[in-house]
């Protein structure tokens, strides 16, 4: 069997890459993709601990996280399409309407 900490390390690494994506990329699409990556690394950690403790509840939670990720992407991309039609750009640096 593979030690649990290897899975958690991989999960942490993928989460960090996702954080870097959110911080570095300027296209809103790429930010969404990085958020998906972070959700997935959290899912990996949850499934790892479900296996570690032989408890099914974490897998149920992963199931709901996947569902909510799908809903979030649908709403987010719909918003993005509307913003693009208004501004002809998905650059998040250009979205400054709410700036005080």
């Amino acid at each position, binding site marked *: 069997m593979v030690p*649990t900490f290897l899975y958690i390390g991989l999960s942490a690494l993928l989460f960090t890459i996702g954080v870097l994506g959110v911080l570095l990329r300027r296209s809103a699409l790429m930010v969404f993709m990085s958020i998906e990556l972070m959700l997935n690394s959290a899912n990996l950690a949850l499934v790892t601990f479900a296996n570690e403790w032989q408890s099914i509840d974490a897998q149920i939670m992963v199931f709901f996280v996947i569902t909510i990720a799908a809903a979030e992407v649908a709403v987010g991309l719909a918003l993005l399409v509307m913003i693009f039609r208004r501004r002809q750009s998905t650059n998040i640096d250009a979205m400054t309407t709410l700036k005080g």
Partner: protein
Amino acid sequence: MDLVIFSITAIIAIIGAVAMLVSRNAVHSALFLLLNLGAISVLFLLLQAPFLFAVQLIVYAGAIIVLFLFVVMLLGAERDEDGADPVRWQVPTAVVMAALLIGQVIYVFVTEPTATADSVNTNISEGFGSPTQIAQALFTTHLYHLKSPHSCCSLP
């Protein structure tokens, strides 16, 4: 044997994530993200979660990535980041903060004895993570989350 499969899959997952981060074209990024999600679904299979393996492939590969590709191609926003970055200190700050984050994780691993000591699961129970067991937990213990708010009051 498990360790070999894990190593190969983990390397594929990391390569997919890094390539998603650095590729300039959003279509390529979405496809690399698909590679990463596929690798993670193989890890789910290694972790005795066959149901989540199937759900991950169906929902992520079949729905979310397709939606991403659809929107990217609909908008024609494959290359939306060309030109100079208006915020110059963004890259060094992001790298420093990511290094801090991964450093914290490594610190916890080094200092927390329960994180690394004897954390190898050797007992494999029959049928763990199977659709039957998931459904049983989902429709008994977690029934409340499945029901919509207006129908939850009529629970028996």
